């Protein structure tokens, strides 16, 4: 039971971070379906930093540097989307797809190159970071508290405040709803959209890091992040682009995802004798059903996906 709660919380943390990232990007008017790729790159940035630091450094330093590295990697990756979508008015769905493929390919190529350079026989795409990872975890009895749970919670609250209570949030919102209106009162739509995309990169990258440190102490980058970026998009839509709703949606989706990891610990679930694949599918099936119910009256940012052209008013 405790394990289920632990997994639910850590998966929900991943989802909440990434979904909030998507939320910022879409509120600025840019659809970001490349979150999956951004997560991989963020995870890579974090993993390499952990590998580099090893087990020697103090926990606080490890946390700070690793998080920073993930966030920066994510931002860098998101800028690929930003530049093309905002300045060159490229199709955002196509870019997102490219980003997902790119994230996976870059990670594998890079990790393999590093592994090869260290050991000519090591052709795997795995990074081990077991020692550094322990900095993120505090054991409370049987419960593994992960600092990321707290970070995710703080980010959630901050997102709410930023979006609804600050000048920045109000302007960002306006750019996703009616960029012409924003422009006419002197708001730089391009700048705000860059901000939205970069925040999504930062949070997506961080989410990737949380995902790979969730349970294991090494990561095989050929596996990517197993569709979590896409799941986060579903969380965002289910949460109707509102931070607090996204928090709740993430908990729900996190719970179902956790179930597939730990269902063997529950007698009544075992007695159902369902193949384990069913539990793997469950989050996706549920998000599909949920989408059917919420999409009819869905209130996506009005101008999302439409490149803003100053000439067209």
């Amino acid at each position, binding site marked *: 039971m405790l394990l289920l709660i632990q997994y639910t919380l850590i998966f929900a943390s991943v989802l909440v971070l990434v979904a909030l990232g998507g939320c910022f990007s879409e509120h600025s008017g840019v659809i970001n*379906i490349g979150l999956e790729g951004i997560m991989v790159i963020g995870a890579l940035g974090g993993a390499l930093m952990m590998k580099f630091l090893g087990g020697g450094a103090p926990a606080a330093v490890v946390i700070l540097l690793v998080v920073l590295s993930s966030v920066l990697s994510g931002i860098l990756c998101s800028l*690929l989307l930003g530049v*093309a*979508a905002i300045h*060159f*008015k*490229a*199709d955002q*769905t*196509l*870019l997102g*797809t*490219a*980003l*997902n*493929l*790119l994230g*996976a*390919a*870059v990670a*594998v*190529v890079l990790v*393999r*190159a590093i592994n*090869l*350079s260290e050991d*000519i026989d090591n*052709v795997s*795409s795995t990074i081990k970071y077991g020692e550094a990872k322990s900095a993120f975890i505090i054991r409370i009895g049987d419960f593994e508290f992960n600092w990321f749970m707290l970070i995710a919670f703080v980010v959630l609250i901050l997102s709410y405040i930023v979006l609804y209570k600050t000048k920045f949030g109000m302007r960002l919102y306006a750019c996703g709803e009616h960029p012409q209106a924003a422009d006419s009162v002197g708001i730089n739509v391009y700048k705000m959209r860059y901000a939205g995309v970069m925040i999504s990169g930062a949070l997506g990258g961080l989410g990737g890091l949380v995902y790979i440190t969730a349970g294991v102490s090494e990561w095989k980058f*050929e*596996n*990517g992040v*197993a*569709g979590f970026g*896409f799941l986060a*998009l*579903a969380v965002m*839509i289910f949460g109707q682009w509102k931070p607090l709703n996204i928090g709740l949606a993430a908990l729900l989706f996190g719970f179902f995802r956790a179930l597939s990891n730990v269902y063997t610990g529950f007698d009544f679930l075992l007695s159902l004798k369902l*193949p384990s*694949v069913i539990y*793997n*599918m469950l989050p*996706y*099936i549920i*998000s*599909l059903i949920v*989408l*059917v119910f919420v*999409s*009819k009256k*869905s209130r996506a940012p009005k101008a999302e996906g439409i490149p803003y052209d100053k000439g067209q008013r």
Partner: protein
Amino acid sequence: MNKERTKKASILRNDGFQTTISSILCILIGFLIGYIVLLIINPKGAGDAILAIMKNFLYYSSAVSAKKYLGTTLVKASALLMCALSVLFANKVGLFNIGVAGQYVVGAGASLYFAVGLGMPWYVSLLAAIVFAAALGGISGFLKSYFNVNEVISCIMLNWISLYCVNMLLSTVKESSTPYTKPLSSANKDGLLPNLGLDKIFSNNKFVTIGVVLSVIAAIFVSILLDKTKFGYELKATGMNKHAAKYCGMKEKRNIIITMMISGALAGMGAGIFYLSGIEQWMIGQTSIPAMGFNGIAAAFLGGLNPIGAIFASYFIQHITSGGTYVDKTMYCTQISDLMIAFIIYLCGFVFFFKLFLNKYLDKRDEKMAAKAREGGEA
């Protein structure tokens, strides 16, 4: 002389020409980036590696081997072409079928299960692949038209669901000693696509089947359907302006569903002609979606969303993907081609801007020339 100039300008203004130019530009930049990455990893072998990728089957010095591996590249390219057709067909109706990957997976599952599990002949298995993948595409289309579910999101969810379902289904036809499905050649010979002598052309490469021909026929079929028929006219009208389509009485909801079904059918057929050639078996328990579908997106866009363009683009992409396996593995990994392809897709996003830029430049040049001509006339 003046006449010649206007002629040149008109070629430059031709949309097909502009598309070709931009695709070639994307490829060149893609290669350049690949080369830079290779240089960063290990400057010693970078030149050889990029050459190996470009050469692909020409890596073999004997004509016999080269032909054989050309055949293999063609088989894979034909599956890729089907995926590209699937993507571009949906795109004509304004839908982004990222579900091509899942539809491909379902096609693979259906064809292999019918051929290996049920012992059906190849045409039944191929039909099963088409029908089931069409059904999957239809689900996304249905959700889009009746529940306003964004097709990109629903397709992504269905991709994963398909993957898990197919893994489950095909575990019933698994070889006991390996993680793969039983090979068709031993389990059901009738399940293999007929060669019709094509294998002879490619140094007895038995994987070269009518599938290769079928895919090209499919491309021509799609091209005719879109450009010459009433149905194609309706689909394009719906894609470009669904309000106008509704206004003049087209059934846009029905059209969206049919489009997604055809799109799915094309992807499913791609999987069918690939797996029923016996070239590969399905690995049960694989946790990532086969790249074929996503590469189909690349091929579709690189081909300028034109069925005939897709033929060339698919071959090219498969060519460098296969070429990636010839890089020196003590220095690099085969995924370097994936990286280049990903970059090429990314660059395809800039094509629209490139054309806009080119046309603006041409406008300015024409205006200047016109002004000069006027001055000349006055003087």
